[in-house]
């Protein structure tokens, strides 16, 4: 008769033999995880698996206005990264299909004449990295967008900004990845991660997988994944609430800092940040403030019907800037976590592919490394 411990050992060996091995496992199938999967799969050299605790678009990537927003991202080098990413969108669309990317130009209005000084300083700073910003006066704003409020004193404007359909974007990243043989596992939370004989063992609700290289791209949920690896990922969860109008006749041509009109006529409005953990409820106070903001910007919206409110949990690194690159204390583990994933996804997918295949990137990622944070260094 076999002893119990021997049976257990045999069981473990069988599980290990049956467990699937991949070159790369990506945790998170949002806009960042699926973009990395797609770009990595273009060479068709690696076996790739993407795991998600839910279904694509059920988290942050599916609850956003999806601006591709560049012009007032500061410091300027961060604006520069955003600009390179925005520049990649037209080519991306050629490769994966119509994601409804529109380079509408972006307008960020201000109501106080005193803000013009700040606007001019921003324009000067961003010009140093090649981002062209015009500082508009009231007449120039109204000439571009006649429906905006005459109470607006001015605005910053740049041609580089735009928006995209986030549903199409993530869906097509995944579709193109599948075409390149990437595997996906949905509704499958990761329960634990261990390192065994130099490879990562990823234990999920339904199966166990092995990976030579591991990428954490879980957005706000990366914090929990980091805990499994014993590293503190210095990010916060931030709730943003948005209201959606009924389809309206064309009223806005540009992406406005705060709102945009979609192809089907709906106007998406909102810009709020609340630190309430993973709570995704809609709250009347923020919705009322958002409705007031809508009318301050665009008075005619008072007559528009709201059909829905939604809310999303965004990830906010403690210093507001993306975290991208190797996890310094762990071989072959990488992280890609950032607030503006929609804007940055084409660039992040490209750079992470360079990093995983060549070991170096065409753009220096030193400023985006995880070990810039004291919280991370204290945890290792």
């Amino acid at each position, binding site marked *: 008769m076999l002893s119990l411990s021997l049976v257990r050992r045999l069981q473990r060996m069988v599980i290990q033999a049956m467990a699937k091995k991949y070159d790369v496992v990506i945790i998170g199938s949002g806009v960042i995880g699926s973009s990395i999967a797609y770009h990595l799969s273009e060479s068709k050299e690696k076996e790739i698996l993407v795991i998600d605790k*839910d*279904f694509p*678009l*059920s988290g942050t990537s*599916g609850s956003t206005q999806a601006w591709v927003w560049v012009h007032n991202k500061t410091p300027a080098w961060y604006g520069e990264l955003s600009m390179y990413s925005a520049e990649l969108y037209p080519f991306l669309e050629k490769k994966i299909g119509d994601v409804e990317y529109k380079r509408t130009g972006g307008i960020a209005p201000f109501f106080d004449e005193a803000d013009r000084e700040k606007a001019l300083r921003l324009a000067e700073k961003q010009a140093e990295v090649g981002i062209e910003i015009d500082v508009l006066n009231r007449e120039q704003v109204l000439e571009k967008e006649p429906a905006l409020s005459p109470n607006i004193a001015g605005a910053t404007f740049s041609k580089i900004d735009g928006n995209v359909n986030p*549903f199409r974007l993530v*869906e097509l990243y995944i579709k193109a990845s599948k075409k390149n043989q990437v595997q*996906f596992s*949905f*509704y499958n939370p990761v329960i634990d991660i261990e390192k065994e004989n130099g490879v990562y063992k990823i234990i999920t609700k339904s199966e166990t997988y092995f990976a030579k290289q591991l990428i954490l791209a879980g957005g706000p949920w990366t914090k929990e994944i980091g805990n499994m690896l014993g590293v503190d990922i210095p990010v916060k969860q931030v709730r943003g609430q948005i*209201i959606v*109008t*009924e389809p309206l006749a064309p009223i806005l041509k540009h992406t406005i800092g705060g709102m945009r009109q979609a192809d089907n006529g709906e106007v998406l409005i909102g810009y709020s940040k609340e630190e309430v953990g993973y709570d995704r409820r*809609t709250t*009347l106070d923020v*919705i*009322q403030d958002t*409705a*007031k903001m*809508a*009318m301050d910007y665009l008075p005619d*919206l*008072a*007559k*528009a*019907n*709201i*059909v*829905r*409110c*939604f809310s999303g949990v965004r990830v906010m690194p403690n210093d507001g800037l993306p975290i991208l690159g190797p996890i310094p204390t762990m071989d072959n583990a990488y992280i890609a976590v950032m607030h503006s994933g929609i804007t940055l996804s084409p660039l992040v997918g490209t750079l992470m592919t360079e990093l995983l295949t060549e070991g170096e990137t065409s753009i220096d990622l030193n400023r985006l490394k995880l070990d810039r944070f004291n919280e991370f260094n204290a945890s290792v």
Partner: protein
Amino acid sequence: MEKSTVVCKCEEINIDEIESAIKIGAHTFDDIKRLTRCGMGPCQAKVCTNLVRQIISECTNKPLSDIKPSKMRMPLKPTRIGVLAGSQESSSVISVFSETAPEDGDSSNG
């Protein structure tokens, strides 16, 4: 039923489109919604929720009772932005005092 039968009237989404979304792995109403726009229109899934749940149940062989309905969010029916913002000019609440208080030069209530 015909594959072309419309289940979401607001966004004109038919059975075939719902089944395609289920085939690529979406197994909840809200996950199907984000892929197809089913339930995103003016009625906010009031008409299609149970029709879609039924299709999910049939395709995934799960009992209907295990299929969650769509997530409901405020406002439950279309509401004007001006109303949500609560502008004072449009107040429909009458001041009892100003309704009965005599106006200047009005002697009829005197």
